[in-house]
C-alpha cells in the first residue's frame, strides 16, 4: 500500500480518537462509531482553529460516511496500532467490527504528541470524545445501537448533515471546514450569543467558553432529537 503524508496524518488523528476512548474507559469503538466521532471532531474543528487533515464525508442514510476511514482502520490494524476487539450485529443481520487501541498504539501516540500541534489535535479530539461519552447514554436514544454508536441519533441532527438529509441524495458531499455552512453559522452564533441578548440580561453570566459552546452544541442536537420524537 502506498501511503502519502496526508494518510499518515489522518491515521494519527484516528489513533487519537482511540487513545481518547481508552482514557475514557470506553471498551471499544465500532466502525460505525468511529465515523461519527471523526465527523463531529472535524466539522467542529474550526471552532478551535485546529487544522485536521480533512476527510471527505458523504451523505448516507445511516449517517455521514468517509470511505477513507475504513481503509485507515485496516492500515492501523496492519501496523498493530489498533486491534479488532469484537463484533457487533445490527438488526441481527449485519455484523461489524469493534476496535481498540493496542499498547503499541498508545506509545506511538505518546511519541507523536511531543509535537505541540499534534498534542493540540489530541486535546481537541479528547474534548469531543468526552462530550460524545456524556451524551451516548442520554434518555430515549435509539436502542438499536449500543455504546458510542448511539450518538448516531444526535449526528442526524447536526445542522449540515440534517440540511442534506432533507434532499436525501445518497453520496452528496457534506461541506466541511470553515465554510459558510449551517454548522458554522450555529457555532459563530454561540460564540457571541450573549451579545444578542437584550441589555437587561446579565450578559456576562451567559458568556460561553470553548467547552460550553461545545456542550450547548451537543445539547442543541439532543433537544432537536427529542423535539422530533415528540412530533412523531
Amino acid at each position, binding site marked *: 500500500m502506498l501511503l502519502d503524508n496526508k494518510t499518515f496524518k489522518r491515521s494519527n488523528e484516528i489513533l487519537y480518537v482511540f487513545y481518547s476512548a481508552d482514557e475514557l474507559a470506553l471498551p471499544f469503538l465500532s466502525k460505525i462509531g468511529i465515523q461519527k466521532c471523526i465527523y463531529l471532531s472535524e466539522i467542529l474543528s474550526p471552532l478551535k482553529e485546529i487544522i485536521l487533515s480533512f476527510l471527505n464525508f458523504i451523505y448516507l442514510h445511516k449517517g455521514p460516511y468517509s470511505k477513507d476511514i475504513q481503509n485507515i482502520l485496516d492500515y492501523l490494524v496492519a501496523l498493530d496500532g489498533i486491534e479488532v476487539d469484537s463484533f457487533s450485529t445490527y438488526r441481527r443481520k449485519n455484523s461489524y467490527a469493534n476496535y481498540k487501541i493496542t499498547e503499541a498504539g498508545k506509545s506511538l501516540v505518546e511519541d507523536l504528541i511531543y509535537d505541540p500541534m499534534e498534542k493540540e489535535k489530541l486535546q481537541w479530539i479528547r474534548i469531543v470524545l468526552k462530550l460524545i461519552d456524556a451524551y451516548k447514554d442520554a434518555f430515549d436514544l435509539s436502542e438499536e445501537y449500543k455504546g458510542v454508536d448511539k450518538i448516531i441519533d444526535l449526528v442526524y441532527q447536526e445542522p449540515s448533515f440534517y440540511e442534506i438529509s432533507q434532499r436525501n441524495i445518497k453520496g452528496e458531499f457534506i461541506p466541511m471546514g470553515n465554510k459558510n455552512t449551517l454548522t458554522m453559522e450555529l457555532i459563530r452564533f454561540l460564540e457571541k450569543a450573549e451579545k444578542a441578548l437584550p441589555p437587561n440580561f446579565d450578559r456576562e453570566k451567559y458568556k460561553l467558553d470553548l467547552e460550553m459552546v461545545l456542550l450547548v452544541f451537543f445539547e*442543541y442536537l439532543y433537544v432537536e432529537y427529542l423535539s422530533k420524537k415528540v412530533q412523531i
Partner: protein
Amino acid sequence: MKDENKIFKIITSSTVLKVLKETQKIELVGFYNKLEALLKRDIPYGTIGQKLVLCIALSFKNQGEWNIFDNGVLALKIKEGLLDGNNVILSNPKGNVINVIKGIYINNYVEAEEFSKKESQLVFFISYMEVHLFINGKAIYYIPNIMQSSRAGVDTPEKLPAREYRKLIENHYNRHVYKEKGSFKYWQNKTRRIFICNPEIQFNKNLYSYLDLNVVDGHVDKGATISGLDDRTDIRIITYENGDMYIMEIKCLGKTDSTKYNDDWANKGLIQLCEYLKDENVAKIGILIIYDGRMNNEEIAWHPNIKWHQKIDKKPMRFFLESESASVKAKRIYKEIKKKS
C-alpha cells in the same frame, strides 16, 4: 439565525450547562444524563420509590464493585435492603459506587443542601418523582416531576410565548395543581383545608419550574431583585427578543397550622406588585396569582382605595383549590339543589 429562542433557552436554562459551569467537569454532564435516563426508565416501575440521595465523589481512582447505571442493579440493591437506614450513595462520575455512607439518612432537600456544603460535591436528592440538584450548597435545579419534565428547549405542545402568560399559568394549574394530581402536594390536612408549611414557597417553586420549561421565548427566574432595590419578585419572565418583563406575584389564601391568610393578604399582594411595577421601568405587565385554600369559593374583596398600577393585569388569577373528592362534592351539590327546589 434559525432557532434563536431555542438556543437562548438552552444557554439560560439548561441544567447540563449549569452543571458544567459549576464544576468544570464534562464527566458530570454524562452523570446527569445517565441519571435522568435511569430515573425515567425505573421510576414508573416503582423500584426507585424511596427517598434516595446520590452523592458523587470526583475521584476516578476509586473503582466500585457495582455501577448504579447497570440495568436494574440499583433497583435490586434497594430491594435487597442496601439503603435501609442509610440513603447516601457515594459514587464516582462513571456511576461506580465507592460506598454507601453508613449512619446518614437525608430526610429532605434542606438536609441534602446542607450535606452538599459539607462534602463540597454534587448532590442529587430524589424523592419519588421530585429531583433536586445541589452543588457546594447551591441549589442548581429542581424538577417537581421528572416523568413530566423534558430538556429546556424541547418543543412540546404546551410551550407558549410569554405574552400567553395567562394560558401558561392556567395550564400549570390544570396539570400540576388541580386536586394535587401531579406529584405536588400542598395540603397538610385536606378535609380541614390546612396547607403545608410555607405554601407560597412551594407554589412559587412549582410554577417557576413549569414556566422555565414551557415559556418558549424568554428566560424565567425567581427571587430576582428589582432594579437598584432590595425587593425580590416571586417570578419574572424576560423575553429574549426585546427584554420585555412579566412580573408574577404569588399569594396563598387559607390557613396553615399557625397562620390564617384572608382577603387582606391578597390586597397586600396587589400593593406589593404595584410597588414592583413602579420601580421596574422595563416591566411590561404584572400579574397577581392567588391560590385560594379558604373554606369557601368567594371572590376577593379588593380594597376600593388601592390604586391599581396601569401595568397590572386587571384580572388577577384566582384558583380555588379543590379538596373534595368527586363523590363528596356531588353529594353536597345535590343537597344544595334539593334545598333550592
